[in-house]
């Protein structure tokens, strides 16, 4: 009897050890996925695609019942307004950059080095700890790790892992994400991080106290860090507060992108390290 118990305990210990080892092997931020992980993602991807299509259709029907009286046109206009707001920030970025960097305008020709690949969101992380999405584009479409993911309204995130026919994107709302940014009109740098506080806001930290930072200022990527090109709209400041240390300030930033309703996104293929405002 006692021997049987020892066998069970040993089996449980081995299983726990295997699971812990698997956790460490499958952490993100590795150069590439193992063959098994890549194959697994590609097997799961078509299933997720089908499920997403079906659930979106079902939800749109449910929503149409609850939003009777709110015309589809209103919803469309709201969507358009969000896109235009992002475009406005982008245009402002064009203007400022043109003023400061007139001498570098010859780089405009390099704009066509950026290719945008349209991708469909086929799944989301089923848990609550992380904000990642799965796209229906992978290595075979030219997607590589750290490729930037955007929408006309602003920055979505970056590619975390690439399988043959699908890829996983770390959204900027994820607590593990950090993006080098600038307050657009004052050029004050800071780092925008995701959070778990469920307010839907991003957290911009390391802002200097001397600079004038007020709500409604736009925040764009700074280009520092080598992943995100400069000038992509990230969000708008909604509040600013002093840090406990008294040396720096932090801001709450509402993202430009509506992360609750991501359906299609653009993957920037080979941005060549150039600003989007070039």
């Amino acid at each position, binding site marked *: 009897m006692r021997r049987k118990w020892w066998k069970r305990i040993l089996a449980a210990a081995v299983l726990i050890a295997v699971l812990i080892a698997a956790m460490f092997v*499958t952490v993100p931020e590795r150069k590439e996925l193992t063959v098994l992980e890549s194959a697994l993602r590609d097997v799961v991807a078509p299933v997720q695609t089908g*499920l997403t299509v079906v659930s979106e259709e079902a939800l749109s029907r449910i929503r149409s019942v609850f939003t009777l009286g709110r015309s589809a046109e209103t919803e469309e206009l709201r969507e358009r307004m969000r896109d235009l707001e992002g475009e406005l920030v982008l245009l402002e970025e064009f203007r400022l950059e043109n003023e400061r960097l007139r001498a570098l305008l010859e780089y405009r020709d390099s704009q066509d080095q950026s290719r945008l690949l349209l991708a469909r969101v086929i799944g989301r992380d089923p848990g609550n700890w992380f904000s990642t999405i799965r796209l229906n584009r992978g290595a075979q479409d030219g997607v590589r790790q750290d490729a930037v993911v955007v929408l006309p309204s602003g920055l979505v995130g970056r590619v975390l892992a690439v399988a043959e026919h699908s890829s996983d994107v770390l959204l900027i709302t994820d607590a593990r994400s950090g993006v080098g940014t600038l307050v657009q009109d004052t050029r004050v740098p800071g780092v925008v991080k995701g959070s778990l506080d469920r307010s839907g806001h991003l957290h911009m930290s390391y802002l200097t106290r001397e600079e004038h930072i007020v709500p409604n200022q736009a925040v764009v990527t700074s280009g520092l860090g080598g992943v995100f090109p400069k000038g992509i709209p990230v969000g708008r400041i909604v509040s600013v507060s002093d840090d406990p240390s008294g040396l720096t300030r932090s801001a709450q930033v509402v993202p430009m992108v509506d992360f609750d309703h991501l359906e299609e996104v653009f993957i920037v293929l080979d941005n060549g390290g150039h600003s989007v405002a070039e």
Partner: protein
Amino acid sequence: MHVFVLALLVILAVLLQTTVFQFLRVAGVSPDLILVLVVFFAISNGPRHGAVLGFVGGLVQDLLSGFYIGMNALSMALTGYIVGLGYHTLFRESPWIMAAIAFIASLGAQSLNYLLLLSLGVTILPANALFGVIVPVAVYNSAVAVLAYRRYYLSSTRGVLRNFSN
């Protein structure tokens, strides 16, 4: 037959969790339907069955996520085992008691996930983890448990899931 129905329930829970409930987030979180199912199953069938279903359900969730594979399998298997220890002692008829068990089990499972993530180098402030994920998920899970338990109970006492452990 039982295993087939249970597999279908796991698949249904995964489907709902990864699709419909992603759009029905409350306080920024979606419920952990697989964990709720594991709690129901463990309390009706004992620790061994609870642990096995927890392991399988958690592993499915891990494989869909694609990262930290094993985290949910471990936390849910452990939760299923511990909840299953109440198989003979807890009053199983009341959905409110089941909601309380689901709440406590969710707190435990999510807290274990948090500790595992910390050990994997994912830095999340304890307050953010507690009030951003652990407590909201536990509340949502217990609400789902209240709504869904009656149907499950009928199925486990008179329906297709009856006498699973026999």
